[in-house]
């Protein structure tokens, strides 16, 4: 297909190979975002409500995840995993490290959204007889979601790009598969353009979804 249009040795097989890499990228992103968001949700609520002596140690650990470069975290986790008796694949290590990384940022996003809900609004909910947990699910979370969504979308798109680093512990995702093809056919510009396009096509729906939700909510503001 490509060779008939322009003079290239990039084949359909290569494209298929890259798409499989893209599948791995999506899988790592999916698990990291899912687990990272759930953990971030729990820790964010804890951070927003717990006393300082619970808060301070959690904040300290999360600061580590946020300040040490992801690449170092991946390589160290991969190297140390046998020492603590874990028999995880590189794929699992990549997902877990990225999930922790995601959760560290997500915690702050959730905390910010939570604290953006006025105390008077929550008091109004409680005065209607709603329980603490009903206040959370019916009032705080929906309002906080609107506040936090843009940052969460940005974080998710960032994590999708950061999955490229799991290459370093031996996972063949989109960027690694592209690099394999570049090495073989020596056409880096073409291959990287295709890889970039695939990244874009994967990010675009998430960004669009976010923009649409935001627009709908803003109509009510």
């Amino acid at each position, binding site marked *: 297909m490509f060779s008939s249009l322009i003079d290239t040795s990039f084949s359909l097989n290569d494209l298929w190979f890259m798409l499989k890499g893209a599948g791995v990228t999506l899988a790592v992103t999916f698990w990291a975002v899912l687990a990272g968001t759930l953990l971030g949700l729990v820790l964010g609520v804890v951070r927003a409500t717990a006393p300082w002596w619970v808060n301070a140690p959690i904040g300290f650990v999360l600061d580590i995840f946020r300040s040490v470069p992801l690449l170092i975290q991946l390589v160290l986790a991969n190297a140390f995993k046998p020492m603590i008796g874990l028999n995880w694949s590189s794929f699992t290590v990549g997902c877990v490290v990225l999930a922790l990384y995601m959760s560290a940022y997500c915690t702050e996003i959730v905390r910010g959204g939570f604290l953006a809900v006025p105390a008077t609004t929550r008091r109004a909910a409680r005065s*209607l*007889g*709603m329980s603490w947990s009903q206040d959370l699910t019916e009032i705080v979370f929906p*309002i906080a979601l609107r506040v936090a969504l843009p940052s969460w979308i940005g974080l998710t798109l960032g994590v999708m790009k950061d999955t490229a680093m799991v290459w370093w512990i031996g996972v063949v995702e989109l960027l690694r598969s592209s690099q394999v093809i570049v090495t073989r056919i020596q056409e880096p510009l073409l291959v990287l353009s295709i890889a970039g396009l695939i990244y874009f096509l994967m990010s675009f729906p998430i960004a669009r979804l976010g923009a649409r939700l935001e627009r709908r909510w803003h109509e*009510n*503001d």
Partner: protein
Amino acid sequence: MSIEINDVHKSFGPLEVIKGVSMTVAPGEVVSVIGGSGSGKSTLLMCVNGLEPINSGRVLIDGTDVHDRRTDLNKLRRRIGIVFQQWNAFPHLTVLENVMLAPRKVLGKPKAEAEAIAVEKLTHVGLAEKLKVYPSKLSGGQQQRMAIARALAMSPHYMLFDEVTSALDPQLVGEVLDTLRLLSSEGMTMIVVTHEIAFAREVSNRVAFFHQGRIHEIGPPSQVIGNPQKPETVAFLKSVL
């Protein structure tokens, strides 16, 4: 069946805000609470429905001790509606959904029934045209009337109002006071904290003047407002009239 406040004391840290307040509100009675800013009026209302704990004394609602550990406050609060100075709309829900929420989640009413209740209450406060609108599209007076409808949807026996007109533009005060008048004419038992002295005089059975955490003077409006006995009451009325 009444609200009984018995020698209530309440402190925030070292600051004692309520210094021994006693008052009984009988069924169908409207008691207005007036007094200077910071005298503890809002705090008292929050102690009545258990939003704030107290240090000593008792508050009984229909004989149930609000501050007894064994009291289920979420259940008790179904009987006491409260509307605050800030409008406190739930911004992510339409006007109708704002009012339906507690009947559905707290009383467990089916959707159709909760909706019927909400439509009835919103019609009552004059918001029948605004059911599908989001609160941000309402004026302050409309938001405040929605908050009243939201409290009424729980069919409370008692209503507490905390300066519900203080944050409103002057031209919107009247419509909210009309709603309160309507409730009092229907026999709702109410404690109304207000700066609207003329309104307090008109609707109240009794007026309580609050001063430095105590009820300084209490009695029929003709006395407390018309012919105050204490110099502090006289001074306060001068300052607001």
